[in-house]
């Protein structure tokens, strides 16, 4: 069946993505957050919630909704920012980041309406997503299940174990999206545990794979519009991204993983995001979590 590809308002998405990135940057102080991984995943998370997933504030308990699982977890500020921009979360609540009186912290948790499952321990949500996808299959449902994985997360054996099982059960209602930002915590992936050729690895595990620019909304739309990629096969999208995307002063920097910026740095980075200038960063680098 050929589906007509709908159009997207790319300009609007790009403008919203800037706002999501502003939210992320504002969370990177007073305790900080995993800003690099959030900025790399921001466009694909925004795209999925804006254009593709059947998820909105009125259907969060509807068994026929689509599901998105954030398995890498560190990118949750991008999710908070997206939720705010799409009306799933109060903007004021972002000020509670790391507050003892709220539940907005470094990893996803289900106290935030719209978050389907907690994460933080890598390699868990591929299997949880499989359980949901299996149940949808058993019930004959049409809803779809997305699981966003980090590339570093692919070191975990359970990601590959899950792929064996997804292949065995022909879970073509399941999509693994890899935020391929080329870095794990402290190092480029290819310098520590090389992953390439990643497309071939997934193909060898029985998946139907698309590799795209994860910051290009047209490319994201073209890839996801082709769902299901192949009848009876797990869908995999390798989204090539840039760690720290949008902030040239931290882009692709191994030492800017977890960031806890000073207040003046935040002001400067917000201007940098809009292309005004580069920021002279003096805050401590690479606080290992």
């Amino acid at each position, binding site marked *: 069946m050929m589906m007509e590809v709908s159009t997207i308002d790319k300009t609007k998405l790009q403008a919203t993505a800037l706002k999501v990135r502003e939210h992320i940057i504002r969370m990177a102080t007073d305790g900080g957050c995993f800003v690099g991984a959030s900025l790399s995943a921001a466009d694909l998370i925004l795209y999925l919630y804006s254009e593709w997933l059947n998820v909105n504030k009125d259907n969060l308990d509807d*068994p026929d909704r689509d599901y998105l699982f954030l398995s890498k977890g560190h990118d949750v500020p991008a999710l908070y920012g997206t939720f705010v921009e799409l009306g799933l979360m109060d903007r004021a609540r972002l000020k509670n980041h790391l507050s003892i009186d709220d539940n907005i912290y470094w990893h996803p948790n*289900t106290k935030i309406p719209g978050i*389907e*499952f*907690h994460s933080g*321990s890598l390699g*868990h*949500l*591929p*299997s*949880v*997503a*499989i*359980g*949901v*996808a*299996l*149940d*949808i*299959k*058993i019930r004959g449902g049409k809803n779809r299940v997305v699981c966003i994985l980090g590339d570093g997360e692919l070191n975990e054996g*359970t990601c590959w*174990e*899950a792929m*064996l*099982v997804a292949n*065995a*059960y022909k879970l073509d209602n399941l999509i693994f999206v890899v935020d391929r930002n080329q870095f794990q915590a402290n190092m480029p992936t290819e310098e520590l545990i090389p992953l390439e050729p990643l497309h071939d690895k997934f193909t060898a595990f029985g998946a139907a794979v698309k590799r795209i620019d994860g910051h290009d909304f047209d490319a994201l739309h073209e890839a996801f519009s082709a769902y299901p990629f192949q009848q009876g096969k797990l869908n995999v999208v390798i989204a090539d991204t840039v760690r720290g995307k949008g902030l040239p002063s931290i882009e692709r920097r191994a030492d800017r993983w977890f960031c806890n910026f000073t207040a003046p740095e935040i002001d400067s980075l917000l201007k940098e995001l809009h292309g005004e200038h580069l920021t002279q960063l003096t805050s401590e680098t690479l606080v290992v979590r």
Partner: protein
Amino acid sequence: MTYEELLTREALADERFIVMTAENRALVRNIYAHLGNRFIDTGITEQTMIGAAAGLALRGRIPVVHALASFLTMRAFEFVRTDAGIPNLPLKLSSFIPGFLSDGNGPTHQAIEDIALMRGIPNMTVFAPADEDDLLKMLPDIWKYPSPSYVRINTRKTDYAHAPFEIGKAEVIAEGSDVTILTYGLLFEQTLEAVKILKQEGLSVGLINMRSLKPVDEQAILKAAESTMIVTVEDHFLTGGLYTIVAETLLKHQTSAHVVPFALNERWFKPSLVPQVLQHEGFTGKQIAEKILGYTTKAVQPKIAAQEFSE
């Protein structure tokens, strides 16, 4: 009725049930024919099975999952703790060949820290039936309980007819003032024998089948503390099992008692068939009784049944 017949009956009556296994089909060989796609074998992937069970539970299912006790509790520990424990999802863990039931498999397969591990997880409930009759009386309530549960599956047959089961309640088999034996699982049969010998030797002996280890029946333990001596008998490490539960309970209630443990102290057991393991490790009824008495008797230890062959 067998375990598989009970599970089939419950699952056919309640669409929420999903039967899963990490390719350990000993208990569920025939169930696929009845349940079709509500039977899911994930292959040798204990972690993925638990994660997927959590996903199924998110969708309102009650997954009853099967794997060998050591791999279910240790290979998949963090998945159980993180994906079932934290969200309090009703995953039902059927743990195959726990404790001495691993026979001749060797220490890789000896789950003798499973009680300690599972009861350490918030929201998790822990059960250890004495025999098949006890197992079948316990499971329906356990499966309907809205929290995750760990069950030491024990399908050995005894001729004891157990009392109805209630979560958090022990089964008091006998009361006595000299010694009260607290036990769970397959050693129940041996403690019955030990009680017989101790009574012949003139002691007033109590026996409690603990059954529900978490939540535990604190009142039963405190009552046992009124006898001169408490004896705990378990196929588990000394650390973290029934002996620890008793100690914690006595301390919590500021009660003291003379407690003598039968357990595996900082060691794995010698692998062999169950009857020989019990003899070698000193867990036959006669051995338990004579250790409590401090002298040998003329009592004859009845033959101990071997395990049916299982994968």
